[in-house]
């Protein structure tokens, strides 16, 4: 089933130095329960595209359909995880997870056991009463993931969620995310600038190139699931990553 449809989408920012084309003629269809990664260097518009899907910003022109309908306001059907956990420092982990439920006016007493389950799901059982300052960066990001899931959205938008973590925590959380995605079927749109991460997680990788931000190529990743770290060293994986690298840096301007 088609969840998100984007057609001839443009986003132009008017800045002091003139008009900046953040996204140019983007076409993308995302199926329900699909795991999509958006990968590309800085300035390729991947975060802009994510925010458009979350209806946090409006496209300048073009079609964006969510469940077949245009989306003008953010929908409660979406959960978001950012690069920073942005937890509320005055709330314990459990109450941080419950924040969206409170804002959406859901029953908190019903939400509480669900929040406990989610913290357990992300491996934070026993940390319900801990405050953010008592948790490591990886643990805080796990709380943020639980918070994004509390209102049971069907779409999970993730904006470089593991980019601020060390490499080992990052891999660990990636696989946990896959495990959660596998049991709690969600449509995931995951932004990253890490090519290995993009391939390892995705059903399809959307490779984007900068100036102007556009989709350079969409790759279907035909690695079996469950994915493992060893897959990174298979010839197939290398073919994918070589291809992504070549299209991302198509104009020869390698971006660090």
């Amino acid at each position, binding site marked *: 089933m088609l969840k998100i449809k984007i057609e001839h989408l443009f986003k132009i920012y008017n800045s002091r130095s003139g008009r900046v084309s953040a996204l140019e003629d983007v076409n993308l269809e995302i199926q329900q329960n699909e795991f999509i990664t958006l990968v590309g260097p800085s300035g390729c518009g991947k975060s802009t595209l994510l925010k458009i899907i979350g209806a*946090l910003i409006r496209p300048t022109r073009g079609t964006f359909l969510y469940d077949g309908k245009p989306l003008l306001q953010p929908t409660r059907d979406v959960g978001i995880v*950012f690069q920073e956990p*942005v937890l509320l420092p*005055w709330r314990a982990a459990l109450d941080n997870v419950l924040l*969206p439920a409170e*804002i959406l006016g859901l029953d908190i007493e019903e939400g509480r056991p669900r929040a406990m389950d989610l913290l357990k799901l992300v491996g934070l059982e026993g940390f319900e009463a801990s405050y953010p300052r*008592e948790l490591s960066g990886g643990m805080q990001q796990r709380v943020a993931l639980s918070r994004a899931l509390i209102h049971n959205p069907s779409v999970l938008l993730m904006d470089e969620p593991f980019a601020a973590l060390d490499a080992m925590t990052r891999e660990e959380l990636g696989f946990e995310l896959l495990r959660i995605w596998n049991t709690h079927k969600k449509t995931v749109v995951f932004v990253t600038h890490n090519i290995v991460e993009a391939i390892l997680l995705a059903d399809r990788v959307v490779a984007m190139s900068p100036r102007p931000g556009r989709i350079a190529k969409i790759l279907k990743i035909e690695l079996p699931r469950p994915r493992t770290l060893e897959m990174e060293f298979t010839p197939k994986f290398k073919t994918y990553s070589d291809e992504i690298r070549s299209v991302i840096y198509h104009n020869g301007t390698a971006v660090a």
Partner: protein
Amino acid sequence: MMPNPAESMPEEIEEHAQRMSVFVAVLGPTVTLLALVGLWEVLARWSGVPAWLLPAPSAIGDSMIDWRAELAWHTMITLYEVLIGFALSIAVSIPLAVAVVYSPFLQNTIYPILLALQSMPKVAIAPLLVLWIGFGAMPKILVVFLVCFFPIVVATASGLSAVPPALIDLIRSLSATTYQTFVKIRFPTAIPHIFIGLKIAITFAVIGAVIGEFVGSDQGLGYLILTSTSQSRTPLAFGALLILTIMSIVLYYAIEFMEHLVVPWAPKN
């Protein structure tokens, strides 16, 4: 609990380090202060400087004991002016800051005027307040109000604007109302900032009360300093000064203590 770097140390070294830190934190400053007071005593007694110019610490102590009833009375007057002016300032500044942050109109109209007013020296306004309102506690309370007002408004306004952009996006994605955003996110985010403003303001508050009393008063520690210096009762003036200093420090730490109670999550400075 926060991991403590000292935890990994062997016990003996840790104990030694703790003893050292106690010495550095408490004993060091105390000994230094006592040494300076002792030096002052020696110089004041044997340098030939007359007592009405520079009294010895012992003379200051004696006069404080002799005048304890008067000192207590004037202290209560000044403390009253400080606390009422400070409370008034909080009651006006915080709602005003909220209004300024939430209303682009007020931001463009009131805020520039506030900034201009802040550049006006409050000491210069004090005589006008006496002229308008007369003697009594009110003009002093108003000076305290005026000096406290600005730091609290600025701190509150900047605190309300200090919400991380990603958190704003998160809240927006949940279609939170303005009220929900204020109560659940913005105001709690602002509280540690507000306390910074309060701590700056309370030190100004004592200065403000003394200025008010200097300009026209028949009571309060500022008045006492003025009259005792003019009557060559210098030790008493020093006594009043000492009480003002202690008052300032105690009020500052009272606010810091409240901060620890209200915002245990605030970053330590």
